[in-house]
């Protein structure tokens, strides 16, 4: 357990280079769209904007954040860019940087993103902790790869029904891991990994692959299980996607490797593979088949254009493969999510037949 007071850098997107922030001596703190902050973001952002971004802004406006040394935002979508626009209005003292995130992951995009990461490294140094070197970044990548490995083993156990507390517990671990210092994260994850296999609460549930963007509330996963669902794997930007391991080769410059690793991790719908338009659908099908799911649930924040546009294609692909899809749109509150209970139950019953 660390004894020094942590110096947090706020972030909001799963593509954020946590290892780089760690290497600069900061603790990455994900501003999750949770909590009791009142709805205030509508004063600055239009009603039809992503509720993820608006809940994050609500927290900022309500001062429901720890002391932040700075905020790193990624230009991942229109809504995130608008968040970068309004952040200085609500927290004028915060240091904020917007890092561009290419929309593809080809080699020129990797090179460009590497330069953006270099700009971030310089900025973090200017913000005052410690210089970022190839060695410190490599060491931090290695640290986060260790965390990714632990999460990988927990996901494997979850698939086999061996994580006490099930998917809800795993989600609470993800939430801790994106808001606490690395050493604390690693310590508690090791502890969980050492636990004896305990059947999860939803052991007899229908195996489901869950994908989408933002679903950080463990209570949502509890709701799934109470409806007879057993999440056997997921691909969410508040879940496993954050902790995909980064492959390292000694021969290449570290930031380039970090850029490639981040851009080529399991994709958010906003990232394209130009040689295969709509590839997300095939990827969802492959992941669902791999974990032997009998159905797929898509969870997306309302007004999220990248997912809105891809869900019909995913539905079509899954339908052809005989795999049912349930799409749930939410506003990042359990209030809206709870209203989906009947649909989830009906979906589960349909799959049991």
């Amino acid at each position, binding site marked *: 357990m660390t004894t020094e007071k942590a110096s947090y850098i706020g972030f909001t997107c799963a593509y954020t280079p946590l290892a780089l922030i760690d290497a600069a001596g900061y603790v990455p703190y994900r501003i999750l769209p949770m909590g009791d902050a009142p709805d205030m973001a509508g004063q600055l952002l239009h009603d039809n904007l992503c509720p993820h971004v608006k809940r994050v802004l609500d927290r900022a406006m309500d001062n429901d954040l720890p002391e932040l040394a700075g905020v790193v935002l990624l230009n991942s979508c*229109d809504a995130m860019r608008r968040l970068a626009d*309004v952040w200085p209005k609500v927290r004028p003292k915060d240091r904020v940087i917007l890092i561009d995130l290419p929309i593809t992951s080809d080699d020129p995009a990797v090179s460009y993103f590497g330069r953006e990461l270099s700009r971030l490294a310089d900025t973090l140094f200017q913000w005052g902790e410690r210089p970022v070197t190839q060695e410190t970044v490599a060491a931090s990548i290695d640290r986060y790869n260790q965390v990714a490995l632990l999460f990988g083993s927990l996901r494997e156990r979850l698939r086999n029904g061996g994580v006490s507390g099930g998917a809800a517990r795993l989600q609470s671990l993800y939430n801790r891991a994106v808001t606490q210092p690395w050493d604390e994260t690693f310590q508690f994850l090791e502890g969980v990994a050492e636990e004896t296999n305990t059947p999860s609460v939803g052991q007899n549930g229908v195996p489901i692959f869950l994908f989408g963007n933002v679903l950080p509330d463990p209570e949502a996963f509890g709701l799934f299980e109470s409806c007879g669902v057993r999440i056997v794997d997921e691909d969410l930007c508040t879940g496993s996607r954050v902790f995909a391991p980064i492959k390292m080769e000694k021969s290449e410059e570290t930031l380039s490797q970090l850029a490639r690793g981040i851009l080529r991790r399991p994709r958010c719908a906003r990232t394209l593979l130009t040689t295969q338009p709509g590839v997300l659908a095939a990827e969802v099908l492959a992941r669902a088949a791999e974990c032997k799911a009998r159905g797929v649930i898509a969870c997306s924040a309302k007004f999220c*254009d990248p997912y809105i546009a891809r869900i019909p294609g995913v539905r079509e692909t899954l339908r052809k493969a005989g795999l049912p899809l349930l799409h749930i749109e939410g506003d990042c509150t359990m209030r809206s999510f709870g209203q989906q209970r009947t649909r989830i139950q009906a979906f589960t019953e349909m799959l049991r037949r």
Partner: protein
Amino acid sequence: MMKQLFDDMAADMEARLLDHYTARLRFTLENARLCQRLYSDTHRLAWCGVCAPFDLLNAMGISSCFVEYLGAVFAAAGSAGQFLEEAEHAGFPTDSCGWHRAVIGAAAKGMMPIPDVMIATSSPCTGGVAAVEHLARTFDCPLYVLAIPPDDSESSVRYLADQIRHMVDFVSAHTGEALDDDRLRYAMHKTNEAREAAIEMFHLAQRIPSPARAADLRNFGITLPLFLGTEAAVEIAQAYRDEFAARSGQGISGVQGERFRLMWLQEAIQFRHPLIKMLEENYQAAIVIEELDDIYWEPIDAEDPYIGLAQRTIAFPFNGQADRRLKHIKKLVQAYKIDGAINPCHWGCRQGTGARGLIGEALKELDVPVINLEVDCADARNFSEGQLRTRLEAFMEVLDSRPGRRSTN
């Protein structure tokens, strides 16, 4: 069917132009000709994002336009409703952009020509990229993506310039149309000529009273780029310049007895509606400028155009953070001596409408009131004419009652 429609339209306009030449009619004719080519089955075709370098594509002999353009054509023709419904049945919710739903529905109904290539542009919006990707999948068509950085640093410009170069190779590989140096140089000269004429035309439009009215320049700024690199763009810009110069010389204003000078933000409502007429006739309010009616870019170096094309693309007012757009709006407000602004807040537009609070604040600094309307500029089905009319009337009363209001009577 569509080709016949555009053939007839173009023939009609050509005849009318012989009888009475106006800049607007010349501009509309060029739009009809583009649609003719798009539906001809004989031209190489590229569906693109808004920020594609159309002058390069024109130089390659590729007929191209941004997909939203076709959505606007459907809306203007009153036929968008059936396509919007088709997209909604396919699972695209009404929360998403109407332009994109319209073309997705049209493609599903077989009313959109199958392109040779598609070119998505990450600016101005995420939704546009998603729509183009969906269409590329629907058409099983090669897709190229221009990732447009938000800033104009050297690294960003170089990254985009390289992508544009590769785009040319990509288009050549999939269409067999090469880009030779002479055609490229010619296209860039034409782009620069059109730019010069447009600058002069916009200066004339700034006069008090303005020779421009809403119907003259509707969609001009967003659509002119489709014709850049060709003689047509030069002719159009020069026709407007000459017409505005003549009107100014004769003391003719766009709106007779101009009392208010308004700015229309983002995009126009494309289907028929009576709001502009009401503003002009009841309040002598002239919409003297649409937000994209501007030349915000430097001339392109015809000998080495890629850097200039990249800089122009990055400089697009809707690209990147809202700061660029706000500065641009403020510049126009001051240049055109705007009394008030109308923001249609196109429903489903995260990048544009998402910034409306910031726009309101920026205009407040200049003491310029803005009215936010809730409307889907592509979708007439939920158009609340009475409500919008009432709100605009109230807005005009506010403008009229402001102390020290400039009167141009």
